[in-house]
Protein backbone atom coordinates (compact mmCIF):
# COMPACT_ATOMS: atom_id res chain seq x y z
CA UNK A 1 0.00 0.00 0.00
CA UNK A 2 2.69 2.44 1.05
CA UNK A 3 4.88 1.25 -1.80
CA UNK A 4 2.09 1.82 -4.26
CA UNK A 5 1.62 5.34 -2.95
CA UNK A 6 5.33 5.99 -3.14
CA UNK A 7 5.39 4.69 -6.70
CA UNK A 8 2.50 6.91 -7.70
CA UNK A 9 4.08 9.92 -6.02
CA UNK A 10 7.34 9.12 -7.78
CA UNK A 11 5.51 9.02 -11.10
CA UNK A 12 4.22 12.50 -10.41
CA UNK A 13 7.41 13.97 -8.98
CA UNK A 14 9.76 12.76 -11.69
CA UNK A 15 8.39 14.84 -14.58
CA UNK A 16 8.28 17.88 -12.33
CA UNK A 17 11.90 17.43 -11.28
CA UNK A 18 12.92 17.01 -14.90
CA UNK A 19 10.92 19.75 -16.53
CA UNK A 20 10.16 22.37 -13.91
CA UNK A 21 13.56 23.96 -13.19
CA UNK A 22 14.46 24.78 -16.80
CA UNK A 23 10.85 25.65 -17.56
CA UNK A 24 10.65 28.15 -14.73
CA UNK A 25 14.01 29.65 -15.64
CA UNK A 26 13.05 30.17 -19.28
CA UNK A 27 9.60 31.42 -18.36
CA UNK A 28 10.96 33.97 -15.88
CA UNK A 29 13.96 35.19 -17.85
CA UNK A 30 12.72 34.91 -21.40
CA UNK A 31 8.95 34.73 -21.77
CA UNK A 32 8.01 37.19 -19.02
CA UNK A 33 10.67 39.72 -20.17
CA UNK A 34 9.39 39.46 -23.75
CA UNK A 35 5.86 40.15 -22.54
CA UNK A 36 7.22 43.11 -20.59
CA UNK A 37 8.74 44.72 -23.67
CA UNK A 38 5.45 44.04 -25.43
CA UNK A 39 3.80 46.14 -22.73
CA UNK A 40 6.51 48.82 -22.86
CA UNK A 41 6.11 49.00 -26.61
CA UNK A 42 2.55 50.15 -26.00
CA UNK A 43 3.69 53.04 -23.79
CA UNK A 44 4.60 55.82 -26.23
CA UNK A 45 8.07 57.29 -25.64
CA UNK A 46 8.38 55.73 -22.21
CA UNK A 47 11.65 56.65 -20.52
CA UNK A 48 13.11 55.12 -17.38
CA UNK A 49 12.29 57.07 -14.25
CA UNK A 50 9.30 58.79 -15.84
CA UNK A 51 5.67 58.38 -14.98
CA UNK A 52 4.32 55.87 -17.50
CA UNK A 53 2.25 57.52 -20.24
CA UNK A 54 -1.14 56.24 -21.35
CA UNK A 55 -1.25 53.17 -23.54
CA UNK A 56 -1.11 53.87 -27.24
CA UNK A 57 0.44 52.88 -30.52
CA UNK A 58 2.80 55.85 -30.64
CA UNK A 59 5.96 53.73 -30.67
CA UNK A 60 4.75 51.72 -33.62
CA UNK A 61 3.57 54.80 -35.50
CA UNK A 62 6.95 56.39 -34.92
CA UNK A 63 8.51 53.57 -36.95
CA UNK A 64 6.79 55.04 -40.01
CA UNK A 65 8.70 58.30 -39.75
CA UNK A 66 10.99 58.53 -42.78
CA UNK A 67 14.29 58.35 -40.86
CA UNK A 68 13.24 55.15 -39.09
CA UNK A 69 11.69 53.62 -42.20
CA UNK A 70 15.02 54.17 -43.87
CA UNK A 71 16.79 52.32 -41.03
CA UNK A 72 14.42 49.36 -41.37
CA UNK A 73 14.69 49.37 -45.13
CA UNK A 74 18.48 49.42 -44.82
CA UNK A 75 18.48 46.49 -42.36
CA UNK A 76 16.31 44.41 -44.67
CA UNK A 77 18.44 45.40 -47.65
CA UNK A 78 21.64 44.30 -45.87
CA UNK A 79 20.02 41.02 -44.84
CA UNK A 80 18.73 40.28 -48.36
CA UNK A 81 22.04 41.04 -50.08
CA UNK A 82 23.92 39.05 -47.44
CA UNK A 83 21.57 36.09 -47.95
CA UNK A 84 21.97 36.14 -51.73
CA UNK A 85 25.73 36.43 -51.41
CA UNK A 86 25.87 33.50 -48.97
CA UNK A 87 23.73 31.40 -51.28
CA UNK A 88 25.90 32.21 -54.26
CA UNK A 89 29.18 31.58 -52.44
CA UNK A 90 27.96 28.79 -50.19
CA UNK A 91 26.28 26.52 -52.72
CA UNK A 92 29.44 25.48 -54.60
CA UNK A 93 31.24 24.89 -51.31
CA UNK A 94 28.45 22.72 -49.89
CA UNK A 95 28.14 20.94 -53.25
CA UNK A 96 31.83 20.17 -53.46
CA UNK A 97 32.08 18.95 -49.86
CA UNK A 98 28.88 16.87 -50.07
CA UNK A 99 29.25 15.34 -53.52
CA UNK A 100 32.78 15.68 -54.80
CA UNK A 101 35.17 15.57 -51.85
CA UNK A 102 36.72 12.24 -50.83
CA UNK A 103 34.34 10.41 -48.46
CA UNK A 104 36.61 10.22 -45.48
CA UNK A 105 37.43 13.94 -45.55
CA UNK A 106 33.85 15.12 -45.72
CA UNK A 107 33.13 15.52 -41.99
CA UNK A 108 36.45 17.18 -41.35
CA UNK A 109 36.07 19.58 -44.26
CA UNK A 110 32.59 20.58 -43.15
CA UNK A 111 33.78 21.03 -39.58
CA UNK A 112 36.69 23.11 -40.82
CA UNK A 113 34.31 25.39 -42.66
CA UNK A 114 31.79 25.84 -39.82
CA UNK A 115 34.29 26.08 -36.98
CA UNK A 116 34.57 29.89 -37.31
CA UNK A 117 30.88 30.08 -36.32
CA UNK A 118 31.94 29.14 -32.82
CA UNK A 119 34.50 31.91 -32.56
CA UNK A 120 33.58 35.42 -31.54
CA UNK A 121 31.91 37.43 -34.30
CA UNK A 122 33.17 40.57 -32.54
CA UNK A 123 36.77 39.47 -33.01
CA UNK A 124 36.29 38.26 -36.56
CA UNK A 125 34.67 41.56 -37.51
CA UNK A 126 37.54 43.35 -35.82
CA UNK A 127 39.90 41.34 -38.03
CA UNK A 128 38.21 42.92 -41.04
CA UNK A 129 38.94 46.40 -39.68
CA UNK A 130 42.63 45.50 -39.78
CA UNK A 131 42.23 44.60 -43.43
CA UNK A 132 39.85 47.26 -44.68
CA UNK A 133 40.90 50.45 -42.88
CA UNK A 134 42.52 53.15 -45.00
CA UNK A 135 46.06 52.14 -44.02
CA UNK A 136 45.17 48.47 -43.70
CA UNK A 137 46.33 45.32 -45.37
CA UNK A 138 44.08 45.71 -48.41
CA UNK A 139 45.36 49.14 -49.30
CA UNK A 140 49.00 48.36 -48.63
CA UNK A 141 48.62 45.31 -50.90
CA UNK A 142 46.96 47.42 -53.57
CA UNK A 143 49.70 50.01 -53.21
CA UNK A 144 52.41 47.38 -53.56
CA UNK A 145 51.04 46.27 -56.93
CA UNK A 146 50.57 49.84 -58.07
CA UNK A 147 46.81 50.22 -57.71
CA UNK A 148 45.05 53.18 -56.10
CA UNK A 149 43.75 52.66 -52.54
CA UNK A 150 40.04 52.05 -51.94
CA UNK A 151 37.96 53.20 -49.00
CA UNK A 152 35.61 50.38 -48.01
CA UNK A 153 35.54 50.57 -44.23
CA UNK A 154 32.51 52.36 -42.79
CA UNK A 155 30.50 51.93 -45.96
CA UNK A 156 27.62 49.65 -46.81
CA UNK A 157 30.01 47.44 -48.76
CA UNK A 158 31.98 46.54 -45.65
CA UNK A 159 28.78 45.77 -43.74
CA UNK A 160 27.55 43.35 -46.39
CA UNK A 161 31.00 41.80 -46.64
CA UNK A 162 31.21 41.38 -42.87
CA UNK A 163 27.71 39.92 -42.64
CA UNK A 164 28.37 37.43 -45.43
CA UNK A 165 31.68 36.49 -43.81
CA UNK A 166 29.97 35.88 -40.49
CA UNK A 167 27.01 33.87 -41.72
CA UNK A 168 28.33 31.96 -44.75
CA UNK A 169 29.06 28.89 -42.58
CA UNK A 170 25.37 28.64 -41.58
CA UNK A 171 24.41 28.48 -45.24
CA UNK A 172 27.05 25.86 -46.04
CA UNK A 173 26.04 23.76 -43.02
CA UNK A 174 22.39 23.63 -44.00
CA UNK A 175 22.96 23.23 -47.74
CA UNK A 176 25.40 20.42 -47.00
CA UNK A 177 22.80 18.57 -44.92
CA UNK A 178 20.40 18.87 -47.83
CA UNK A 179 22.85 18.00 -50.63
CA UNK A 180 24.25 15.04 -48.73
CA UNK A 181 20.84 13.36 -48.93
CA UNK A 182 20.61 14.01 -52.66
CA UNK A 183 19.79 10.89 -54.62
CA UNK A 184 22.93 10.52 -56.71
CA UNK A 185 21.35 7.91 -58.96
CA UNK A 186 19.07 10.66 -60.27
CA UNK A 187 22.10 12.77 -61.19
CA UNK A 188 23.68 9.82 -62.96
CA UNK A 189 20.43 8.93 -64.69
CA UNK A 190 20.00 12.50 -65.96
CA UNK A 191 23.59 12.57 -67.21
CA UNK A 192 23.19 9.14 -68.86
CA UNK A 193 20.09 10.34 -70.63
CA UNK A 194 22.17 13.10 -72.18
CA UNK A 195 21.39 16.14 -70.05
CA UNK A 196 24.32 18.57 -70.04
CA UNK A 197 25.67 19.41 -66.56
CA UNK A 198 24.00 22.84 -66.28
CA UNK A 199 20.66 21.21 -67.05
CA UNK A 200 21.25 18.40 -64.55
CA UNK A 201 22.05 21.07 -62.01
CA UNK A 202 19.00 23.23 -62.70
CA UNK A 203 16.48 20.41 -63.15
CA UNK A 204 17.68 17.80 -60.65
CA UNK A 205 20.07 19.23 -58.08
CA UNK A 206 18.36 22.54 -57.36
CA UNK A 207 14.77 21.23 -57.08
CA UNK A 208 15.90 18.46 -54.76
CA UNK A 209 17.81 20.78 -52.50
CA UNK A 210 15.12 23.48 -52.46
CA UNK A 211 14.12 22.81 -48.82
CA UNK A 212 17.76 23.28 -47.83
CA UNK A 213 18.05 26.45 -49.89
CA UNK A 214 14.93 27.84 -48.23
CA UNK A 215 16.02 26.89 -44.72
CA UNK A 216 19.57 28.18 -45.18
CA UNK A 217 18.40 31.44 -46.72
CA UNK A 218 15.92 32.13 -43.95
CA UNK A 219 18.43 31.31 -41.24
CA UNK A 220 21.00 33.66 -42.75
CA UNK A 221 18.32 36.29 -43.34
CA UNK A 222 17.07 36.37 -39.75
CA UNK A 223 20.52 36.26 -38.15
CA UNK A 224 21.86 39.04 -40.34
CA UNK A 225 18.68 41.10 -39.89
CA UNK A 226 19.18 41.20 -36.12
CA UNK A 227 22.95 41.45 -36.10
CA UNK A 228 24.48 44.27 -34.11
CA UNK A 229 28.24 43.77 -34.10
CA UNK A 230 28.98 43.87 -37.84
CA UNK A 231 27.14 47.10 -38.73
CA UNK A 232 28.39 48.70 -35.53
CA UNK A 233 32.05 47.90 -36.14
CA UNK A 234 32.25 47.96 -39.93
CA UNK A 235 29.37 50.25 -40.85
CA UNK A 236 30.27 53.61 -39.37
CA UNK A 237 27.74 56.37 -38.86
CA UNK A 238 26.02 55.90 -42.22
CA UNK A 239 24.94 52.31 -41.61
CA UNK A 240 22.39 52.61 -38.83
CA UNK A 241 20.40 49.37 -38.62
CA UNK A 242 17.52 48.14 -36.47
CA UNK A 243 19.75 46.40 -33.93
CA UNK A 244 21.95 49.48 -33.56
CA UNK A 245 18.91 51.72 -33.22
CA UNK A 246 17.52 49.45 -30.48
CA UNK A 247 20.89 49.47 -28.72
CA UNK A 248 20.92 53.27 -28.77
CA UNK A 249 17.43 53.48 -27.29
CA UNK A 250 18.66 51.59 -24.22
CA UNK A 251 22.39 52.11 -23.77
CA UNK A 252 23.01 55.07 -26.07
CA UNK A 253 22.00 58.70 -25.85
CA UNK A 254 18.29 58.42 -26.68
CA UNK A 255 17.11 56.30 -23.73
CA UNK A 256 13.64 55.95 -25.18
CA UNK A 257 12.72 52.55 -23.79
CA UNK A 258 9.22 52.62 -25.21
CA UNK A 259 10.39 53.15 -28.77
CA UNK A 260 13.24 50.66 -28.27
CA UNK A 261 10.73 48.05 -27.11
CA UNK A 262 8.54 48.74 -30.13
CA UNK A 263 11.51 48.20 -32.44
CA UNK A 264 12.43 44.99 -30.59
CA UNK A 265 8.91 43.68 -30.99
CA UNK A 266 9.07 44.48 -34.70
CA UNK A 267 12.34 42.54 -34.97
CA UNK A 268 10.88 39.56 -33.09
CA UNK A 269 7.80 39.73 -35.30
CA UNK A 270 9.87 39.79 -38.49
CA UNK A 271 11.89 36.79 -37.34
CA UNK A 272 8.76 34.88 -36.31
CA UNK A 273 7.14 35.63 -39.66
CA UNK A 274 10.21 34.32 -41.46
CA UNK A 275 10.13 31.11 -39.44
CA UNK A 276 6.38 30.65 -39.93
CA UNK A 277 7.01 31.06 -43.65
CA UNK A 278 9.71 28.43 -43.53
CA UNK A 279 7.54 25.96 -41.63
CA UNK A 280 4.66 26.45 -44.03
CA UNK A 281 6.92 26.26 -47.06
CA UNK A 282 8.76 23.24 -45.65
CA UNK A 283 5.50 21.39 -45.05
CA UNK A 284 4.25 22.00 -48.54
CA UNK A 285 7.57 20.76 -49.86
CA UNK A 286 7.24 17.56 -47.83
CA UNK A 287 3.81 16.92 -49.28
CA UNK A 288 4.82 17.32 -52.88
CA UNK A 289 7.64 14.80 -52.53
Amino acid at each position, binding site marked *: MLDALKYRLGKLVEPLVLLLPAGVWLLLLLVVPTLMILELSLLPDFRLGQAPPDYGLGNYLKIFEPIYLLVIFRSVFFAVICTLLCLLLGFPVAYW*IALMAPDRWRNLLLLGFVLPLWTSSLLRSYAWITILRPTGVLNSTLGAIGLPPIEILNTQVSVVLGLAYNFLPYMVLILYASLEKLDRRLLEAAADLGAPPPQVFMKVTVPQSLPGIAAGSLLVFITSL*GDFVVPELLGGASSMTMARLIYNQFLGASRNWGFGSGLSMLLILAVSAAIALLLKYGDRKAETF
Partner: protein
Amino acid sequence: MSQTSPSPKIRLQWQFILTLAMFAFMYVPVLVLAFFSFNESPFSSDWQGFSLKWYESLRNDGRILSALQDSLSVAFISVIISAVLGTLMAVGLARYNFPGKSLYQGMSYLPLIIPDIAIAVATLVFLASLAIPLSLWTVVAAHVVFCIAYIAVVVSTRLTGLNPFLQEAALDLGATPTQALIKVILPELMPAIISGCLLSFVLSMDDLLISSFTAGGGVTTLPMEIFSRVRTGVKPDINALSVILILGSGILAFAAEFIRYQGDQRRMNQ
Protein backbone atom coordinates in the same frame (compact mmCIF):
# COMPACT_ATOMS: atom_id res chain seq x y z
CA MET B 1 27.01 19.14 -78.18
CA SER B 2 30.26 17.83 -76.80
CA GLN B 3 31.50 21.25 -75.73
CA THR B 4 28.55 21.66 -73.34
CA SER B 5 29.59 18.65 -71.28
CA PRO B 6 33.09 19.30 -69.98
CA SER B 7 35.10 16.42 -68.60
CA PRO B 8 34.47 15.60 -64.95
CA LYS B 9 37.99 16.59 -64.07
CA ILE B 10 37.49 20.20 -65.15
CA ARG B 11 34.19 20.41 -63.29
CA LEU B 12 35.89 19.15 -60.19
CA GLN B 13 38.47 21.80 -60.61
CA TRP B 14 36.33 24.94 -60.60
CA GLN B 15 34.22 23.84 -57.66
CA PHE B 16 37.32 22.77 -55.84
CA ILE B 17 39.02 26.09 -56.51
CA LEU B 18 35.97 28.00 -55.35
CA THR B 19 35.80 25.93 -52.17
CA LEU B 20 39.48 26.57 -51.60
CA ALA B 21 38.91 30.29 -52.13
CA MET B 22 36.05 30.26 -49.62
CA PHE B 23 38.19 28.45 -47.07
CA ALA B 24 40.76 31.19 -47.58
CA PHE B 25 38.01 33.81 -47.19
CA MET B 26 37.11 32.23 -43.85
CA TYR B 27 40.61 31.95 -42.48
CA VAL B 28 42.71 34.74 -44.03
CA PRO B 29 41.31 37.55 -41.81
CA VAL B 30 42.21 35.54 -38.71
CA LEU B 31 45.66 34.77 -40.12
CA VAL B 32 46.20 38.46 -40.88
CA LEU B 33 45.33 39.26 -37.29
CA ALA B 34 47.73 36.57 -36.07
CA PHE B 35 50.48 37.87 -38.36
CA PHE B 36 50.24 41.43 -37.09
CA SER B 37 49.97 40.34 -33.47
CA PHE B 38 53.65 39.37 -33.78
CA ASN B 39 54.60 42.69 -35.34
CA GLU B 40 57.08 44.92 -33.53
CA SER B 41 55.40 48.02 -34.95
CA PRO B 42 52.25 49.36 -33.25
CA PHE B 43 50.75 50.04 -36.68
CA SER B 44 49.32 47.02 -38.39
CA SER B 45 50.31 48.02 -41.87
CA ASP B 46 54.08 47.65 -42.07
CA TRP B 47 56.17 44.77 -40.77
CA GLN B 48 59.01 45.79 -38.49
CA GLY B 49 60.15 42.45 -37.17
CA PHE B 50 58.97 39.62 -34.96
CA SER B 51 58.02 40.44 -31.41
CA LEU B 52 56.02 38.93 -28.55
CA LYS B 53 55.66 42.23 -26.77
CA TRP B 54 51.91 42.58 -27.41
CA TYR B 55 51.31 39.20 -25.81
CA GLU B 56 53.48 40.22 -22.88
CA SER B 57 51.67 43.52 -22.48
CA LEU B 58 48.42 41.56 -22.01
CA ARG B 59 49.84 39.90 -18.93
CA ASN B 60 50.30 43.27 -17.27
CA ASP B 61 46.99 44.72 -18.41
CA GLY B 62 44.90 44.78 -15.24
CA ARG B 63 41.65 45.62 -17.02
CA ILE B 64 42.03 42.74 -19.45
CA LEU B 65 42.88 40.32 -16.66
CA SER B 66 39.93 41.32 -14.52
CA ALA B 67 37.65 41.15 -17.55
CA LEU B 68 38.97 37.67 -18.26
CA GLN B 69 38.20 36.70 -14.69
CA ASP B 70 34.63 38.03 -14.98
CA SER B 71 34.11 36.22 -18.29
CA LEU B 72 35.41 32.93 -16.92
CA SER B 73 33.28 33.19 -13.77
CA VAL B 74 30.15 33.90 -15.80
CA ALA B 75 30.86 31.11 -18.28
CA PHE B 76 31.70 28.46 -15.68
CA ILE B 77 28.73 29.17 -13.41
CA SER B 78 26.29 29.48 -16.32
CA VAL B 79 27.45 26.25 -17.92
CA ILE B 80 27.28 24.24 -14.69
CA ILE B 81 23.72 25.41 -13.97
CA SER B 82 22.67 24.90 -17.60
CA ALA B 83 24.22 21.44 -17.82
CA VAL B 84 21.93 20.25 -15.02
CA LEU B 85 18.79 22.08 -16.10
CA GLY B 86 19.28 21.48 -19.83
CA THR B 87 19.92 17.75 -19.43
CA LEU B 88 16.92 17.30 -17.11
CA MET B 89 14.78 19.18 -19.60
CA ALA B 90 15.93 17.10 -22.55
CA VAL B 91 15.29 13.84 -20.67
CA GLY B 92 11.89 15.07 -19.51
CA LEU B 93 10.88 16.12 -23.01
CA ALA B 94 11.94 12.76 -24.43
CA ARG B 95 10.08 10.81 -21.75
CA TYR B 96 6.76 12.53 -21.19
CA ASN B 97 3.80 13.70 -23.14
CA PHE B 98 1.70 16.33 -21.44
CA PRO B 99 -0.73 19.07 -22.42
CA GLY B 100 1.16 22.12 -23.59
CA LYS B 101 4.27 20.12 -24.47
CA SER B 102 4.66 21.78 -27.85
CA LEU B 103 4.45 25.17 -26.15
CA TYR B 104 7.12 24.13 -23.68
CA GLN B 105 9.27 22.84 -26.52
CA GLY B 106 8.74 26.04 -28.47
CA MET B 107 9.87 28.03 -25.45
CA SER B 108 13.06 25.98 -25.28
CA TYR B 109 13.90 26.94 -28.86
CA LEU B 110 13.19 30.65 -28.38
CA PRO B 111 16.72 31.62 -27.26
CA LEU B 112 18.09 30.14 -30.49
CA ILE B 113 15.63 32.09 -32.63
CA ILE B 114 15.11 35.52 -31.06
CA PRO B 115 17.92 37.94 -31.97
CA ASP B 116 20.40 38.59 -29.17
CA ILE B 117 19.60 42.29 -29.10
CA ALA B 118 15.92 41.59 -28.35
CA ILE B 119 16.77 39.07 -25.60
CA ALA B 120 19.24 41.56 -24.13
CA VAL B 121 16.72 44.40 -24.13
CA ALA B 122 13.95 42.25 -22.68
CA THR B 123 16.17 40.99 -19.86
CA LEU B 124 17.24 44.54 -18.99
CA VAL B 125 13.61 45.69 -18.88
CA PHE B 126 12.71 42.71 -16.69
CA LEU B 127 15.54 43.38 -14.25
CA ALA B 128 14.84 47.11 -14.15
CA SER B 129 11.13 46.73 -13.53
CA LEU B 130 11.74 44.37 -10.61
CA ALA B 131 14.46 46.77 -9.40
CA ILE B 132 17.00 43.93 -9.33
CA PRO B 133 20.47 45.52 -9.15
CA LEU B 134 22.73 44.52 -12.03
CA SER B 135 25.70 42.37 -11.04
CA LEU B 136 27.68 39.33 -12.10
CA TRP B 137 24.69 37.19 -11.14
CA THR B 138 22.30 38.94 -13.48
CA VAL B 139 24.72 38.18 -16.32
CA VAL B 140 24.81 34.54 -15.23
CA ALA B 141 21.01 34.37 -15.06
CA ALA B 142 20.76 35.72 -18.60
CA HIS B 143 23.50 33.46 -19.98
CA VAL B 144 21.85 30.37 -18.50
CA VAL B 145 18.86 31.05 -20.76
CA PHE B 146 20.75 30.48 -24.02
CA CYS B 147 23.11 27.87 -22.55
CA ILE B 148 20.12 25.72 -21.49
CA ALA B 149 18.76 25.89 -25.01
CA TYR B 150 22.03 24.77 -26.64
CA ILE B 151 22.70 21.96 -24.18
CA ALA B 152 19.10 20.72 -24.44
CA VAL B 153 19.30 20.63 -28.25
CA VAL B 154 22.56 18.65 -28.27
CA VAL B 155 21.35 16.21 -25.59
CA SER B 156 17.95 15.78 -27.28
CA THR B 157 19.61 14.81 -30.53
CA ARG B 158 21.47 12.04 -28.76
CA LEU B 159 18.38 10.95 -26.80
CA THR B 160 16.37 10.37 -29.97
CA GLY B 161 18.93 7.79 -31.05
CA LEU B 162 19.02 6.11 -27.65
CA ASN B 163 17.78 2.54 -27.26
CA PRO B 164 14.32 2.93 -25.66
CA PHE B 165 14.62 -0.44 -23.91
CA LEU B 166 17.69 0.65 -21.95
CA GLN B 167 15.59 2.29 -19.25
CA GLU B 168 13.16 -0.64 -19.12
CA ALA B 169 15.95 -3.17 -18.85
CA ALA B 170 17.44 -1.25 -15.92
CA LEU B 171 14.05 -1.11 -14.19
CA ASP B 172 13.44 -4.82 -14.81
CA LEU B 173 16.77 -5.60 -13.23
CA GLY B 174 15.65 -3.83 -10.08
CA ALA B 175 16.97 -0.29 -10.46
CA THR B 176 14.85 2.60 -9.23
CA PRO B 177 14.00 5.23 -11.86
CA THR B 178 16.59 7.58 -10.35
CA GLN B 179 19.24 4.86 -10.40
CA ALA B 180 18.34 4.02 -13.98
CA LEU B 181 18.75 7.66 -14.93
CA ILE B 182 22.10 8.12 -13.17
CA LYS B 183 23.72 4.76 -13.88
CA VAL B 184 22.34 3.86 -17.30
CA ILE B 185 21.00 6.88 -19.16
CA LEU B 186 23.48 9.50 -17.97
CA PRO B 187 26.65 7.65 -19.09
CA GLU B 188 25.04 7.20 -22.51
CA LEU B 189 24.35 10.92 -22.68
CA MET B 190 27.75 12.01 -21.38
CA PRO B 191 29.38 12.75 -24.77
CA ALA B 192 26.43 14.95 -25.70
CA ILE B 193 26.40 16.71 -22.33
CA ILE B 194 30.12 17.45 -22.44
CA SER B 195 29.86 18.58 -26.05
CA GLY B 196 26.91 20.84 -25.24
CA CYS B 197 28.76 22.27 -22.25
CA LEU B 198 31.84 23.11 -24.31
CA LEU B 199 29.75 24.80 -26.99
CA SER B 200 27.73 26.86 -24.53
CA PHE B 201 30.93 27.76 -22.66
CA VAL B 202 32.30 29.18 -25.89
CA LEU B 203 29.06 31.06 -26.57
CA SER B 204 29.03 32.51 -23.08
CA MET B 205 32.68 33.61 -23.36
CA ASP B 206 31.95 35.28 -26.71
CA ASP B 207 28.68 36.98 -25.84
CA LEU B 208 28.76 40.76 -26.09
CA LEU B 209 25.18 42.03 -26.24
CA ILE B 210 23.47 40.13 -23.46
CA SER B 211 26.36 40.82 -21.09
CA SER B 212 26.40 44.52 -21.98
CA PHE B 213 22.74 44.86 -21.04
CA THR B 214 22.83 42.81 -17.83
CA ALA B 215 26.24 43.55 -16.29
CA GLY B 216 26.54 46.03 -13.47
CA GLY B 217 28.53 46.84 -10.42
CA GLY B 218 31.94 47.00 -12.05
CA VAL B 219 31.45 43.77 -13.98
CA THR B 220 33.04 43.92 -17.44
CA THR B 221 33.34 40.77 -19.51
CA LEU B 222 36.15 40.33 -22.01
CA PRO B 223 34.02 41.00 -25.12
CA MET B 224 32.69 44.17 -23.46
CA GLU B 225 36.23 45.37 -22.73
CA ILE B 226 37.37 44.54 -26.26
CA PHE B 227 34.33 46.21 -27.79
CA SER B 228 34.93 49.45 -25.92
CA ARG B 229 38.57 49.48 -27.07
CA VAL B 230 38.21 48.58 -30.75
CA ARG B 231 35.54 51.20 -31.36
CA THR B 232 38.34 53.72 -31.42
CA GLY B 233 40.55 51.81 -33.84
CA VAL B 234 43.04 49.00 -34.22
CA LYS B 235 45.12 48.09 -31.17
CA PRO B 236 48.08 45.70 -31.45
CA ASP B 237 47.50 44.18 -28.00
CA ILE B 238 43.89 43.49 -28.97
CA ASN B 239 45.24 41.68 -32.04
CA ALA B 240 47.16 39.41 -29.71
CA LEU B 241 44.20 38.91 -27.40
CA SER B 242 41.91 38.15 -30.37
CA VAL B 243 44.29 35.48 -31.62
CA ILE B 244 44.33 33.78 -28.20
CA LEU B 245 40.55 33.91 -27.86
CA ILE B 246 39.78 32.75 -31.40
CA LEU B 247 42.22 29.89 -31.01
CA GLY B 248 40.71 28.98 -27.63
CA SER B 249 37.13 28.99 -28.95
CA GLY B 250 38.17 27.06 -32.03
CA ILE B 251 39.92 24.35 -30.03
CA LEU B 252 37.00 23.96 -27.59
CA ALA B 253 34.44 23.82 -30.40
CA PHE B 254 36.55 21.28 -32.26
CA ALA B 255 36.85 19.19 -29.09
CA ALA B 256 33.08 19.39 -28.63
CA GLU B 257 32.39 18.14 -32.15
CA PHE B 258 35.04 15.44 -31.80
CA ILE B 259 33.56 14.12 -28.53
CA ARG B 260 30.08 14.06 -30.02
CA TYR B 261 31.34 12.30 -33.16
CA GLN B 262 33.25 9.71 -31.12
CA GLY B 263 30.14 9.07 -29.01
CA ASP B 264 28.02 8.49 -32.09
CA GLN B 265 30.64 6.23 -33.66
CA ARG B 266 30.87 4.12 -30.52
CA ARG B 267 27.14 3.68 -30.46
CA MET B 268 27.04 2.68 -34.12
CA ASN B 269 29.66 0.04 -33.45
CA GLN B 270 27.66 -1.51 -30.63
